[in-house]
């Protein structure tokens, strides 16, 4: 199922977070989304972008489990 590399996923997520207003230099795998000022509306947008790019549908329950950038990358990589 490895149609998409972890690097591709990381890039899409990172670019999305930057477009939402997060500082690029603050973004790394361990960064907490809350510390990046990413909230539920941003995550709803991120879910949409992820589905469009990778065909992975994230429910609001899935999104609620994500607390760091790495969590998001891993969750998508697992399903992509």
């Amino acid at each position, binding site marked *: 199922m490895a149609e998409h590399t972890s690097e591709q996923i990381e890039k899409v997520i990172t670019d999305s977070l930057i*477009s939402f*207003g997060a500082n690029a230099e603050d973004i790394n795998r361990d960064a907490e989304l809350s510390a990046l*000022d990413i909230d539920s*509306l941003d995550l709803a947008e991120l879910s*949409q972008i992820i589905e469009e790019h990778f065909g992975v549908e994230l429910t609001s329950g899935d999104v609620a489990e994500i607390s760091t950038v790495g969590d998001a990358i891993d969750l998508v990589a697992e399903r992509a």
Partner: protein
Amino acid sequence: MNDVVVTGVGAVTPLGIGATALHERWAAGICGIADGEGRCREFVATEHLSVKDARRADRFTQLALVASIEALADAGWGEGMPYDAGRVGSIIGTGIGGIGTIELNDRVMFDGGPKQVSPLAVPLMMGNAAAAAVSMRHGLCGPAFGTVSACSSGADAIGTAIRAIRHGDAVAVVTGGAEAALTPLSRAAFGALDALSHSGISRPFDARRDGFVMGEGAGVLVLEDGEAARARGARILAVARGYGATADAHHLTAPHPEGEGAAAAITRALADAGAQASDIVYVNAHGTSTPLNDRAETIALKAALGEHARAIPISSTKSAIGHLLGAGGAVEAIATILALRARLIPPTLGWGERDPQLDLDYVPDRARPLDLSDGRRPIAISNSFGFGGHNAVLCLEAI
């Protein structure tokens, strides 16, 4: 009952960023209209707002936020609010709301299906978005909502804010109006009504007037309970003396031909202010440059003010910035206050050919100093009338 005072103003208009740009450029005879529209060409949201705040806001909300930041700083609130947050409201009118967001997401849905519609679509398009954003930006926890009465929305917001303070619902209200409807659908829709100027020229009260020119922008004022403002040593710009609101109950888009509702609103605003017609030294007209409005408004002014109407300078801000729809009443209230404070009445730009039925003094050509030989404080009215037959009039006294 305490008075309600204006302690800060902020504006983003086709004449530039800031309330000072609005007054000074209009008074200098500069017109902000280009290519038949009054666009805020100097406005770049991210020069004033973070990326996050800017993308969380439709353009009408962005304009309101930037005007509100200026208004709060002008009121001396830049270093923090002087009142308990729960006692400060946010009442911001708009005629249409986030129509740019609606149109964008409609296209996205048409092209890509419903799953492509942004989760931000609803919070950006909703008509209360500007009031909500201003509340959140500044931490205002008192009454917060939008007012919707087409082109009277901004004046109705201010009138409602005056009432909220007088009634004790709030000690201060950040209030005004915002509009950003220079969009394809909006242009087409107003065009279909044949409301827009074919010449692309806004020349209120002139015989050649042929419709309004659309504009965009925002005006925000800080209103405070007069006693509270004086207790904190605030610089007071003006007193929000009165507000009158009526409806024509006549036609969806046309004003009453004799301006009855408009005249009644002026009369009510004067009564609310405890002022006489003879106290009024300036009228900031609704003056849209449509054949019907400018005629009905002239009749209404004569009906409400009597012979004194002929002695008062009357000018229309829309000659310099176009018709800002739901922002108009707020921007024009600010223009009125700054004109009175400067004792300088900006002109009705483009006026040059008299319509025999419109026989008042529309201040053509250039700004005119306001003669107040008896040293009294200048009092003016600012008119706003909206599709639907809404009439809202503010009575303002400058310090």
